[in-house]
């Protein structure tokens, strides 16, 4: 079997990232709707703009962060690269390039998903329908994951697809947590209030983590236990630790099965996982959760760049690095 084209490795990586991103956008919008319902403040939809650092682009287009404007911006707006429509469109473009390497079932499903989104109109985004729409988006993304699990040939394409999924999920879970920070920021007196507890509850549910959390913490719910759970839990599939741990397993598989050494990116991934393994949530909160999440996001971006030069041939250097360079031109 010949090695995978570097370009296709990257397409597989981003195909998974974009669909994982679409799923998490749906989760973020869904949880924000819950948080907004309980909040009595104006601009309760602004946090979504903030966690994506989209203030400049958003306010160039919209006067204020109304529910309609933010929801449209993050679901339908094709000009916004961080919208569900853009993410699914980009996923489809990557799938199109990978079309000959992925299964027909994967491709057909992405097409159906893409076509459904294209048929949406602003009236489908009204608050009464929003939750159902977010549910539908999530189910489509999960269907993709299921079809992939059941049909994608497990060569390098599969490894890079899964790697993209893990990296994106780690990043998105930090953003999901961060949204809570932005909701509470203007009113620190609410910390520990019933509203606060309700918000942590909603956050956990949006990550599909409420029941898992209860198994670990049968009683009580506070910032430390919830944030600690979403960041460091060893078994929860959406925790940052589990996502990065899986990513480490995938780069190891690339080395064992295909003799691909990821160079610096593998070292950085393992270092970050090690850091999470030994981190203490009390310490994190003392130093500032938001700042900690910010630094995690920056490290994940740096790792993506390293993966680009180690596997995808970015930066002009030689593409990839095999232990024995048996394929170098004479």
């Amino acid at each position, binding site marked *: 079997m*010949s*090695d*995978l*084209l*570097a*370009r*296709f*490795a990257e397409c597989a990586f981003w195909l998974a990232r974009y669909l994982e991103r679409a799923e998490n956008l749906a989760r973020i919008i869904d949880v924000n709707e819950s948080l907004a319902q309980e909040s009595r403040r104006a601009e309760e939809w602004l946090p979504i703009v903030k966690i994506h650092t989209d203030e400049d682009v958003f306010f160039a287009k919209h006067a204020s962060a109304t529910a309609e404007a933010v929801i449209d911006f993050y679901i339908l707006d094709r000009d916004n690269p961080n919208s569900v429509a853009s993410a699914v469109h980009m996923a489809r*473009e990557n799938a*199109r*390039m990978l*079309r*000959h390497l992925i299964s*027909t079932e994967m*491709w*057909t499903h992405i*097409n*159906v998903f893409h*076509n459904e989104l294209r048929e949406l109109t602003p009236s489908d985004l009204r608050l009464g329908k929003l939750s159902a729409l977010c549910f539908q988006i999530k189910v489509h993304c999960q269907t993709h994951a299921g079809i992939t699990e059941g049909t994608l040939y497990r060569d*390098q394409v599969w490894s890079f697809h899964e790697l993209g999924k893990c990296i994106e999920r780690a990043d998105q879970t930090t953003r999901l947590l961060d949204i809570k920070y932005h909701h509470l920021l203007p009113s620190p007196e609410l910390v520990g209030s019933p509203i606060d507890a309700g918000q942590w509850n909603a956050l956990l549910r949006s990550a599909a983590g409420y029941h898992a959390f209860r198994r670990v913490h049968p009683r009580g719910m506070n910032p430390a236990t919830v944030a600690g759970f979403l960041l460091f839990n060893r078994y929860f599939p959406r925790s940052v630790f589990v996502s990065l741990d899986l990513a480490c397993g995938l780069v190891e598989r*690339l080395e064992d099965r*295909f*003799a*691909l050494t990821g160079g610096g990116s593998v070292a950085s991934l393992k270092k970050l996982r090690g850091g999470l393994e030994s981190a203490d949530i009390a310490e994190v909160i003392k130093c500032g959760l938001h700042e900690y999440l910010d630094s995690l996001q920056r490290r994940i971006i740096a790792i993506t760049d390293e993966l680009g030069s180690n*596997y*995808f*041939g970015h930066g002009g250097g*030689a*593409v*990839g*690095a*095999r232990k024995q*360079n048996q*394929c*170098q*031109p*004479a």
Partner: protein
Amino acid sequence: MSAAVNPSVLAGYDPGPHYCEMLGLPGHLSGHAAPIRDRLSHLTFEALQQRTQAAERELYNLGITFTLYSGATSIDRILPFDVIPRVISPEDWRIIETGVIQRITALNLFLHDIYHDRKILKDGVVPSDLVLGNSAYRPEMVGVDVPFGTYIHICGTDIVRDETGRFLVLEDNGRTPSGVSYVVENRRMMLRAFPDLTEGVALRPVSDYGPRLQEAMMEVAPQGNDDPEVVLLSPGVFNSAYFEHVFLAREMGVPLVEGQDLFVGEDDRVYMKTTAGPALVEVIYRRLNDDFLDPEVFRPDSQLGVPGLLRACRAGKVTLANAVGTGPADDKAVYAYVPRIIKYYLGGEAILANVETNICREDEGLKYTLDNLEKLVVKPVNESGGYGITVCPKANKSQIADCREKLLADPKNYISQPMIDLSVCPTLIGDKVEPRHVDLRPFIVTGRDSWVLPGGLTRVALPRGSIVVNSSQGGGSKDTWVLE
């Protein structure tokens, strides 16, 4: 045929004065399609329409689309598909099969000759300037030997049928012909949507096109490697035939690459950039035109090609399929000489006749064309996709005047042909079955030897009376059934 209760699909169908692929000559019911007619008669319009809708939805979900360019915008569309098949008898197929193999054999000999000894030019059989002055002639290929003398590995030959049922070759497509993916996909869809139509009828299969092509590609690899790496080189996702490139790469089981994925090393070999570093490539099935292949030799602004590719090809380190410089063989002006080319190299008459062609670069041809313009179809010699054609018998006065002006301004850019009364096929149009004109593009694959995919792409002109079948001009397709 009793069709009293449920009006059957073919009841009331009248092909008029045309040869019909389902019924035969006007007034003489042909036996070859009888089993299919019989099965169709058990279907109602409603069933036919429902199954058509299901088939089209499937194409849409599968993303089997082509891209239509109109100015700066592009639209993804599915190729309209008609579910009533075009049926070819074993006898008719034998004529087509032997005819196109004879033709491709002669054309490959012709290409070898014009890039080596030029005997056919010296003997005055084909005018020298028509070949050597042709913009598609590539002096870079002079003296270059290609494995088995095969230049055109994949050929799509456009064939029509006149009102007497005689097959005529309209043109050869020996550069980067497309359309074969529809042949295979149409069949898959028909077998799923109409199992009752094919039950008990022995059809020649089309599903092994990919493996056959892959085998031919392996055969033409440079000497010395039993397991050469074959790749398909595509211009990329924005190409209108990208879906087909994907389809073929999958069917052949080869990497689908773009120019940016390949490079030519110091050793004149071609490599692709993989996750594990450079990997040797020995055969390239390229779906990129000559002009874009190598910016070092052809268009320097090409972002799609691979610098040095022609160098690798000339050094015999890589085989390109089709070879560089096949253009003169399917040129619309050279076309007129193909019967003589066949006779020159193979010594016999052409099994498949040409459509009578007037070459406007010759005074006689131009004069005849201008004198008889209202009866003729005028084609530019260097266009494809049906662009630039004037069908004078169906054109209005100002279009004909326009055509005359263009002819006079640049006669050597045109040929003219009599209008052939193309054969028709029953075709579902709204809630009626009506005759529509069709052509046929069989695909010939040549490595060491030639093989013809049974059937080929039947294109159907959907507007009433139209004879332009190109997808860019409102054409659709049909499944083509060659009976055993």
